[in-house]
């Protein structure tokens, strides 16, 4: 009872302080929903089956007619998404329109005709907010009544997302409100300033996905095709070291970062080279730490200049230093895609492509698969795979190349002698080289089955008895309750792979 009384007190105090930031009380209550998610991930080790289903709860905010914005990490691997209004018990079924783990953004659609959805109304999204804006954060208390707290934007920077290894523009909001779940809306001037994607109780800092990211995603998600985030396809590093600057003959004015890697198939690979020094990007000087002066937000990381101020398909002018000489280049931007990597992260935990034949389980290596070996995965997974992930993740030799692995062997008479193999790199199937699962499916399809597997640095092929194969596959399916011996993703239109 005590804590309840305390929270009411905080709510009242916060309401008074944040009055200016909030829209009318009714508008807040009519746009805020709880998002109740049941999710289930495909088992990374037995990919025909799923892990235990579980639940997550967070918030969403109505941003259009029948449209709710929430975070991607909340609805990840969703099997059911339901909404619930403030102060109400009824649940409203919703479906996922689009989710993008690169931005931690998701858009849901609900049936506006549903009885419980009556009265839900969109809140306008702010077009701009000042860098030190006073804001109000809203969440629901345990009685499901809106609880408001005031806050202030204290920092604007490109930071790693809390649930994905990608940087995105993040507003840090200092607030006393103890924000318990992701997706809580933040208001300024009566409009939606953003949503909180994380909150640190210790620092009292919430990470806010800002209004512009949100507005752009909502518009993009409703138009075919989804455009996504732009990127050029390179990895860069700061260039502070005076000795190195002198060696590269970089200017004394403190400009420039160094290109480290260009991914094949990207605009960077066409126009840039490792070792190039980027002096200016898209007309703006880049300092030696990779910052530029943003007209809206001040000093920001180069990443935002690409992903936030440009769109896929744009060509941007770049001023470079190569071999001590300055030069101009135009760099084509494309949609950022995890699929460009040699080892995709698979942050969204999508179902992996696999083939199980004669008990041999083949799949591609992903960051998610490695991390599924537990928090100590770097100590548990073979050091060769760890090393590949750490150094070559973004460096396929050709676009579409992946690491195909023999993930495991399900013991059966057909594969005796091979059952101790696991997490080994596969170089050939039936004697033909494979660079990804597409090659594996192609060869297995043409030859009718997987007859021989070549593992990297294992000079003897693992050979399977062709005559036993059909019986063995039937037996394996029955014994291990394998519902599908393979899974192949539908190739997206225009997929280069």
């Amino acid at each position, binding site marked *: 009872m005590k804590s309840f009384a305390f929270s009411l007190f905080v709510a009242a105090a916060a309401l008074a302080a944040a009055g200016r930031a909030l829209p009318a009380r009714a508008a807040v209550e009519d746009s805020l929903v709880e998002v109740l998610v049941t999710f289930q991930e495909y088992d990374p080790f037995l990919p025909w089956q799923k892990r235990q289903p579980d639940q997550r709860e967070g918030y969403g905010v109505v941003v259009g007619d029948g449209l709710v914005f929430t975070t991607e990490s909340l609805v990840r691997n969703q099997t059911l998404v339901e909404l619930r209004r403030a102060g109400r018990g009824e649940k409203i079924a919703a479906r996922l329109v689009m989710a993008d783990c690169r931005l931690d953004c998701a858009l849901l659609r609900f049936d506006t005709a549903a009885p419980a959805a009556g009265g839900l109304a969109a809140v306008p999204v702010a077009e701009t907010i000042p860098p030190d804006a006073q804001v109000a954060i809203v969440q629901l208390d345990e009685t499901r009544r809106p609880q408001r707290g005031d806050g202030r934007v204290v920092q604007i920077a490109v930071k790693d997302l809390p649930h994905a290894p990608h940087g995105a523009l993040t507003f840090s909001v200092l607030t006393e409100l103890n924000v318990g779940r992701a997706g809580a809306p933040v208001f300024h001037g009566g409009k939606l300033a953003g949503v909180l994607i994380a909150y640190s109780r210790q620092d009292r800092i919430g990470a806010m996905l800002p209004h512009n990211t949100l507005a752009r995603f909502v518009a993009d998600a409703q138009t075919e095709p989804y455009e996504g985030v732009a990127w050029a396809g390179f990895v860069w*590093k700061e260039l*502070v*070291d005076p*000795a*190195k600057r*002198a*060696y590269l003959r970089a200017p004394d004015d403190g400009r420039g970062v*160094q290109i*480290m*890697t260009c991914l094949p198939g990207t605009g960077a690979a066409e126009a840039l080279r*490792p*070792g190039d020094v980027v002096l200016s990007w898209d007309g703006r000087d880049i300092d030696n730490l990779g910052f530029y002066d943003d007209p809206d937000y001040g000093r920001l990381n180069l990443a935002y200049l690409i992903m936030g101020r440009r769109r896929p398909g744009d060509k941007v002018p770049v001023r470079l230093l190569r071999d001590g000489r300055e030069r101009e280049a135009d760099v084509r931007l494309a949609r950022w895609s995890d699929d460009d990597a040699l080892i995709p992260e698979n942050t969204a935990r999508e179902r992996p492509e696999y083939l199980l034949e004669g008990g041999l389980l083949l799949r591609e290596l992903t960051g998610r698969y490695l991390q599924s070996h537990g928090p100590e995965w*770097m*100590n548990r997974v073979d*050091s*060769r795979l*760890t*090393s590949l992930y*750490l*150094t*070559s993740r973004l460096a396929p030799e050709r676009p579409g190349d992946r690491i195909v692995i023999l993930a495991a062997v399900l013991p059966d008479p*057909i*594969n*005796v*002698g*091979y059952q101790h193999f696991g997490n080994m790199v596969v170089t050939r199937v039936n004697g033909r080289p494979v660079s990804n699962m597409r090659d594996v499916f192609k060869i297995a399809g043409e030859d009718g089955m997987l007859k*021989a597997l070549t593992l990297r*640095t*294992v*000079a*003897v*092929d*693992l*050979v*399977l*008895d*062709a005559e*036993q194969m059909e019986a063995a596959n039937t037996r394996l399916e029955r014994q291990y309750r394998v519902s599908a011996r393979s899974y192949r993703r539908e190739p997206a239109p225009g997929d280069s792979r």
Partner: protein
Amino acid sequence: MMKSTVNPAFALALALALAAADTATAGLAVPFQTARRSVVKIHVTKQEDDYSLPWQGGRMMNGTGTGFIIGRRRILTNAHIVSNARFIQIQKDGDPRRYDAAVRFAGHDCDLATLEVADPSFFEGTTSLELAGALPRLSDTVTVLGYPMGGDRLSLTRGVVSRIDYSVYSHSGVDHHLVLQVDAAINPGNSGGPVLFRGRVVGLAFQGLAWAENIGYAIPVPVIRRFLDDIADGAYHGYQELGAATLELRNAALRRALGLPDSRSGVAVHYLDPFGCGAGRLEEGDVLLAIDGHDIADDGTIRLDGNGVLFAELLERKQWGEAIDLKVWRKGSAQSVSVPLTGPADPFGYRRIYDERPPYAILAGLVFAPLSRNYLETIKSSTSETNARRLLYFLTYAKIDGLCEGRDEFVVLTRRLPHPVNTYSESFLYGVVGTVNGTRVRNLREFNGALASPAGGFHVIRFEGMEDELIIGAEAAAAAAPRIMEAYAVPAPAYLGE
């Protein structure tokens, strides 16, 4: 012989102390009062080299262990008791005097060593223990003598042989040999003590398992004998590796693919270690059919003295310079291949190093040293440093993935002694050096040599798997050196070995 790159057992340098003392069942052929006169206490002052500060002597430690006299005035003990020793003294039971001793031979791959005592009066009143002719059997009652913690005098304990198996020898970190497991509580201090059956030595207590109870390990008599035979010519050569990784042939489809007739059995060579004895004699894809006349089964075992043991056990018993006769199935026919066991020294075997001063070379406060297991153990396993994580890959896959080609060792940037000249080098820490000033370096000596020729006033160092280059101004590096050496108490800019 059989090597594992990962050490699964937390085997401690401990010794055996058996619980019961039922002399009625002991069956000592040599009376205890005689046997005890051969068992000595070893007092050691050690200094373990600190591979993160390789120019220093390292931390000092005092410890005790056990040894026993085996004739010809030799004292047998564990290598781990006397490795990195600075001062060794030996004491007989009930005798207050301590005698100076020195290591004569140390086999770090089998954790055995012999000591010498210069003072002839030491051996007055002592006896020698004899080695048994064969291994004891399971459930045989054995007696262990030694100087475990909890007292100063000789201790006698007893237990049974619980298991005879292969296990890791934790002293080197990589070697597997036969071990004798005894059901004894394990206590520090009496490593090196004899395990006696009917008054003869069947083993030498050497390690325990940290989390287990009543599991103590002894080095069995065949391994002891092999060590003593090895040093008989005045030098220790160690175990020879065949260097053939094999795949068992229990799969009929695989046997057919290799063209092996049904009447034959064996294992297929799927990888040959370039530093193994088999390199150049065997071929990848060979099927090993028989070893020294013993047919190899499809699971890699042979029948030996009525037991099924791994075929490698025959190699375990061989000495350097001997040969092993293999029958192999190659390209459709059986062939005889004699493999002389005279393999080259393997710099990429990564045994833990003892009794060697660690080499290093310093440039601008950046310490470079050869990759070693000792160095890797100084890095916290919790580190998230990408480069540090990759060192384990270099250590494990040096030969398999051909990383060692063109090198004698991997030169690693092991640490930074902070100074303004090296402020921006943090991201290169733990990196493996590829080229220095345009030169590919085989070893630390070549690395140090390449520093003599900076290009255009800069040292340019490239690391494996990194796009970025480390740039150090040559003049600035030279100017900073005296201050760095003084501040961090580094006596010399490099030690490149003998």
